[in-house]
């Protein structure tokens, strides 16, 4: 499955929750969650299937508890199955689709280089800024910043932690803009992907079949209710 085109993987991960919300409960959603968990179990590569399936189940478990606290059994099961489908599908997608491969597919499909840049730059900026946040917290604690106490003390401490983080992040914008301008990232520039993921007719047909399947499920549901 990991060799499939990124758009096919995206289509499958989107179709399963769409079907879970459309098909009659509980059996429709039970079927979609079973498929999603099976996909998780079959995940190859660095994260073995059992690890991926366990991650999906651990993420979904609190919702089951909260839903049984809030709703009667039938409603809780119906919502929980739908949510579990959504969670398992996205956990599977994250495990099987490396973001750089998606970016390559987007560029190869003719999407703007800006679009690809935004996606790739965000994925690299988040862990870097999180690490900087931790450095600022450690540095401010070393200087004697009290992070415990009454709400006002905590709010003041929050300002002392958040302000340097946000200001330093904004300072980076100019450097990034300069680097991008130097590398010729301007509107209309077309990048050549080094290793575009192969796309076959079978996969295109599969993607359209998923779209038509979802539309048919919605139409069927509307007609059934009418």
């Amino acid at each position, binding site marked *: 499955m990991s060799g499939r085109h990124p758009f096919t993987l995206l289509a499958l991960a989107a179709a399963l929750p769409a079907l879970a919300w459309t098909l009659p409960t509980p059996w429709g959603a039970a079927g979609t969650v079973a498929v999603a968990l099976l996909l998780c179990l079959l995940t190859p590569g660095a994260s073995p299937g059992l690890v991926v399936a366990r991650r999906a189940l651990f*993420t979904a478990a*609190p*919702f089951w508890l*909260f*839903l049984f*606290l*809030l*709703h009667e059994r039938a*409603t*809780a099961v119906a*919502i929980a199955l*739908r*949510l579990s489908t*959504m*969670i398992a599908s*996205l*956990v599977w997608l994250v495990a099987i689709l490396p973001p750089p491969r998606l970016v390559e597919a987007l560029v190869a499909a003719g999407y703007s280089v*800006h679009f690809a*840049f*935004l996606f790739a*730059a*965000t*994925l*690299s*900026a*988040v862990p870097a*800024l*999180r690490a*900087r*946040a*931790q450095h*600022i*917290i450690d540095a401010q604690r070393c200087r004697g910043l009290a*992070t*415990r106490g009454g*709400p006002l003390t*905590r*709010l003041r*401490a*929050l*300002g002392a*932690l*958040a*302000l340097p*983080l*946000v*200001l330093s*992040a*904004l*300072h*980076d*914008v*100019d450097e*990034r*803009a300069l680097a*991008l*301008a130097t590398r010729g*990232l*301007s*509107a209309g520039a077309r990048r050549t992907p080094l290793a575009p993921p192969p796309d076959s007719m079978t996969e295109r047909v599969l993607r359209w079949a998923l779209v038509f399947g979802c539309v048919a499920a919605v139409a069927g549901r509307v007609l059934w209710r009418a």
Partner: protein
Amino acid sequence: MSIRLLALIPVAVAINLALSAAVDAVGLPLFLDTTGTILATALAGPVVGVATGVLTSVTNSFRNPTFLPFVAVQVLVALYAWVAARAGLFRSLTVAIPAGLGLGILAAAASTPISYKIFGCSTSGGVTMITLLGRKLGMSDLLACAFSAFVTDFGDKAVTFGLVATVLHALPKRTAARFPLALRSIGAA
């Protein structure tokens, strides 16, 4: 879109997602996960703000898939912040904090149908407990859900607006002038 504004978007998304570390350190019941969206809008307008909000939801859903359905709230936050910036509501804390409270009401109203329809009001342990409390007080399911959304969003958005106003005022004038809306947001243009 200029390269500077393009470079601002990933940084603003990272601000949205990295501030949780600061919140955890002080142990306050806040999210601050729209700070980057509001800041980007106040600096550069609604297109940059909406792009930041959408990208935040997508990126956050890689960590926790339940964030994805709330993308509409991020878009609403960006549009509200744009109106606030054009009106110069970041010019002082005394104006920014009430404007943030207004956003809290709007954000709660926007997130309630999503939370109710998709999650059955079970988005987190805290929300579940507040919804249960609402029910004990005699509220209907939907009203209890709105009550929990209101309690969690109200203070958070006020603090977020206050933080963004503080950041905008702390920016050197030369840096602020490089962004199209920054000076207007703080009432300096």
